[in-house]
């Protein structure tokens, strides 16, 4: 049972990734990429890593993909027309991702209703992850926080408008 769910989820992940990287429209690609990340989250859950699955949905499919959406929307501001917006919403563009997402949702419901016998081997609980994270791996937490601070400073530096800099160059 768990094997079948795993193989369906991995097929969804592979096909969604292939479709995402072959689209010509960035917004359509983003839908398939989110779908691929959700499928990988289901794989994590089936592998007995519920904490990693939750973080995959929250941070990867949530926060990081929202950054992509924001940037794509910012770049499209000038040329966006009503016709293009309408073309983005044709059924052809959302039926396949919607079908795949429904498949993943049904899988998740099945997995949740059979948790004890469906999760492979022994599930690694969030408590064990937390204990290891703030025990032997506490240096990794510090390094990750410094990395995120560096990313924040770098993104702020790159993202602000270069008005001052350009007038200095002239």
């Amino acid at each position: 049972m768990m094997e079948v769910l795993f193989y369906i989820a991995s097929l969804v992940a592979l096909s969604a990734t292939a479709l995402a990287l072959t689209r010509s429209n960035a917004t359509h690609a983003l839908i398939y990429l989110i779908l691929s990340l959700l499928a990988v989250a289901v794989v994590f859950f089936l592998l007995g890593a519920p904490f990693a699955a939750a973080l995959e949905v929250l941070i990867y499919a949530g926060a990081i993909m929202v950054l992509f959406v924001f940037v794509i929307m910012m770049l499209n501001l000038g040329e966006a027309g009503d016709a293009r917006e309408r073309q983005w919403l044709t059924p052809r563009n959302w039926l396949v991702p919607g079908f795949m997402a429904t498949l993943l949702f049904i899988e998740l419901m099945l997995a949740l209703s059979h948790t004890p016998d469906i999760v492979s081997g022994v599930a690694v609980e969030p408590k064990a992850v937390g204990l290891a994270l703030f025990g032997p791996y506490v240096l990794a937490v510090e390094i990750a926080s410094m990395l995120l601070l560096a990313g924040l400073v770098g993104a702020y530096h790159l993202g602000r408008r270069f008005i001052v800099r350009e007038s200095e160059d002239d």
Partner: protein
Amino acid sequence: MGGLTVPLEHVLVLAALLFSFGLLGLMLRRNIIFMLMSLEVMLNAAALAFVAAGANWAQPDGQIVFLIILSVAAAEVAVGLGLVLQIQRRFKTLDMDTANRLRG
């Protein structure tokens, strides 16, 4: 020893296939948004391999490396999308081949 009902090799094959999709996308696409998406796919595939190994031996270490990869991906995408905005502002295109000269 937890042991998976799915062979560990199959999960690793899935991770390798996802990684090669990301690598192919990175090499074939020239739109910088798609290149960043391919990088995300590759990081995600590496994280999948770590989580699978951690699940196979029922140890939390795999998920901790997943957390580190997650923060690397978040920092990378923030800086990368900042670069996308700068490139769009300077070159009026997202094609990477127009930005192949430094100090352009």
